[in-house]
């Protein structure tokens, strides 16, 4: 009786509310477009056309989505443990180092299907290591993980600059990047899958790591809801006191969860580095680590929500590029504004429309609400 609102049916909770929030976010974004003197309708059309209107568009949308699935899952795993990992950006960045080390070492030794698992391990291991240090500081010293993971983003950026202008740069090269990997360290593209659906495309960055991302979404679901470790993570996330009572070691669970989170963030590097650019470049993460936070918020930290949320943000990235190309008044920053609005409405104001929706549903179909209520009341 302590909850002021009755429960909504699941379809409204997980389907309707995010859609309403999204709609409001876009409506407000439309107002901003209007303010800069462009037509919101045209912008929306461009956005959707750019993202889904062509095979190439879809390829790019899913390519961006791949990165966001990894980072979104990374944030979600930490959320389940009550930890806010905003270091996905840095963990993904150093994860690229793991990919590059494997690819540079073995690209003329093994075929791609050997290099791929090795690169997965490499990226995950370094990403996990990068998350482990803040985790240990949190577990042993009480240093807040939000602060330390942010700081580690900067450390990662500096470290990578040092490596890419120094040890990793081929001699006589002017660009701060590694040499291009040999073909055996390239991930297969998935353009042919899109062509199966009738799209015609010359080239697409979409690659096999998209499939890995979907596999990891399933793995995360199994981990969180079907393993003992996941049970302990959720216990600690909901109630550290209950976890202690249940004999779940606080330090262990924080460190293990953060390492898993860091590993997932690290794997994001596979997508651009091994799948598209085939070399390690400066700033290849381009904010995907932070977008992961929005994706995890919007996807309610559930893989089934994270995948569509990641695709939505992929669409914003791809379609946004299209808008700024056609409408010079709207820069890429506009897309950042829309992202911000989505985070605001889907995350921070998540419950804004809940009470009125409940009232509306209750008056429309008292029965559907009543069924939930008898469950609650039965005690």
């Amino acid at each position: 009786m302590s909850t002021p609102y009755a429960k909504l049916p699941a379809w409204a909770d997980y389907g309707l509310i995010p859609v309403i929030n999204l709609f409001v976010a876009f409506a407000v974004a439309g107002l901003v477009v209007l303010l800069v003197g462009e037509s919101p309708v045209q912008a929306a059309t461009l956005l959707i056309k750019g993202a889904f209107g062509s095979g190439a568009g879809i390829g790019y949308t899913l390519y961006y989505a791949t990165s966001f699935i990894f980072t979104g899952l990374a944030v979600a795993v930490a959320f389940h443990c009550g930890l806010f990992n905003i270091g996905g950006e840095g963990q993904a960045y150093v994860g690229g180092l793991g990919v590059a080390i494997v690819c540079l070492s073995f690209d003329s030794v093994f075929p791609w299907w050997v290099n791929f698992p090795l690169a997965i391990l490499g990226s995950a291991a370094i990403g996990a290591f990068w998350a482990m240090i803040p985790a240990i500081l949190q577990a042993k010293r009480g240093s807040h993980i939000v602060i330390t993971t942010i700081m580690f983003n900067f450390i990662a950026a500096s470290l990578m600059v040092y490596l890419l202008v120094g040890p990793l740069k081929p001699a006589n090269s002017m660009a701060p990047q590694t040499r291009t990997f040999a073909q055996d360290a390239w991930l297969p593209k998935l353009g042919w899958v899109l062509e199966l659906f009738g799209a015609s495309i010359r080239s697409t960055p979409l690659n096999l790591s998209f499939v890995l991302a979907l596999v990891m979404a399933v793995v995360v679901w199994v981990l969180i809801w079907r393993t003992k470790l996941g049970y302990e993570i959720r216990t600690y996330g909901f109630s550290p006191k209950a976890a202690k009572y249940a004999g779940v070691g606080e330090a262990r669970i924080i460190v293990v969860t953060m390492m898993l989170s860091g590993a997932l963030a690290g794997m994001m590097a596979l997508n651009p580095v091994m799948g598209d650019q085939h070399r390690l470049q400066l700033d290849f993460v381009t904010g995907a680590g932070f977008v992961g936070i929005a994706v995890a918020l919007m996807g309610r930290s559930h893989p089934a929500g994270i995948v569509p949320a990641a695709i939505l943000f992929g669409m914003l990235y791809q379609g946004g590029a299209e808008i700024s190309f056609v409408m010079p008044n709207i820069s890429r920053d506009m897309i950042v504004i829309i992202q911000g609005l989505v985070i605001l409405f889907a995350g921070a104001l998540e419950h804004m429309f809940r009470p009125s929706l409940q009232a509306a549903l209750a008056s429309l179909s008292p029965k559907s609400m009543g069924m939930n209520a008898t469950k609650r009341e039965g005690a």
Partner: protein
Amino acid sequence: MAPAAIELKGINKSFGAVHANRDIDIEIPKGTIHGIIGENGAGKSTLMSILYGFYQADSGEIFVDGKKTDIQTPNDAIAAGIGMVHQHFMLVENFTVLENIILGAEGSQLLNAGISRARSELHRLEQDYGLEVDPDAVVEELAVGLQQRVEILKALYRGAEILILDEPTGVLTPAEADHLFRILRMLKDEGKTVVLITHKLREIMAVTDNVSVMRQGTIVATRKTAATTVEELAELMVGRRVLLRVDKGEPNPAAVKLSVRNLTVKDSRGVTMVNDVSFDVRAGEIVGVAGVAGNGQSELIETIAGIRKAVSGTVMLDGKPIDVTGAADPGELRDRGLAHVPEDRHHVGLVLPFEENENAMLGYHDDPKFLNGPFLNIDAIRADAREKIQKYDIRPADCRLKTANFSGGNQQKIVLAREMEHDPGVLIVGQPTRGVDVGAIEFIHKQLIAMRDGGKAVLLVSVELDEVRSLSDRILVMFDGRLVGERGPDATEGELGLLMAGVEAREAAE
């Protein structure tokens, strides 16, 4: 006849489809003490929250002194002369009494005028009602009973003619409670109206003029206190006859299972909470620890259960030490046969957002029967949960329901079922019936007696003196971190009450 101080007509309040208050009609005559009694979740708090403006009723009317009054916020309630003393005090701990009293009623931008006005007003209130308290004392340094008095003064300072007290005696010693009742009677004599919300039948009988019983959101009866009995009220509350006394046979104590020696525990601020405590618990007996909340009982059982670290001392479980000053781990202790029903089931004993079946294995999730390698064996977990639901009559019988949606009594049964069903040698129980309805209390008490009769050692901590007295074979009294006395189950309430208040055992005997 003068109009009633409060009259509620046809109050309805729903949360979603949960009908928390249903057609409530109640009339509280001026200058009386009116008790409202009911089980947890019966709707008492909701009703009072409506009266105090925390919630708005869906329908119905409120009349104060015969005038229809619209109460939208607590400020409206205060303006209508209604004051409330909450179960959990709403005081700024590091403010003085005076500062707390004028908080929200400062009167002007500058404090001085308000403070001096408050000081003289406070002096008058003290004289009129015997509510002595030093206006310049810092609140956190006051005893709990005095803090409560500050709450009452706060309400009176705002001109309250009607005072609502929500479970006021939960944190008081019997003596402090008696003093509170004296104050309430004095308020009544001055023409104030008092509404007392409680689940303690004894208090209703001791102090009220009239009593209304709530059950499942409705008022099932209103009686003159003088014309009713404890038994009748209990029956009205639960809707069936209840056994208020616990039936138990003679204890049969055997070997020492749990042995505590010179245990000292400090809290995070370095304050000594448990001071050099030693005692034994034998198989086949219930040892009760009585004391006013906050005198170290919580820390004592948390330390034995491995949740909190001790500074010094030893604890032996079955003759083997528990590393209480070092790496004692609740999981390991569970394996050694020590079960623990924690005092705070909402944050410690249960994870409220979990499904019931997930809580039914909390702490025992290492048990191979719940696992397939690293994976959870969902079928086994749910089957086990259903079995416990059946055996302990947990309602609703749905192991997939979110734990937060069970009532307090059923939540406690989930914890008890989990801890008892693993056949522990020693059971530590903190506040087994806090926030639990009368029907479930009876069941829980029977289970504890059954544990004892099954040859288990039970250590019971409760702030409900009646509970400690009726269940325990030996009673230890804790005051200020020390054990100040041991008594048999036949010790009188007065005797225990003095010990709980820190009066030395020798003086108590005189």
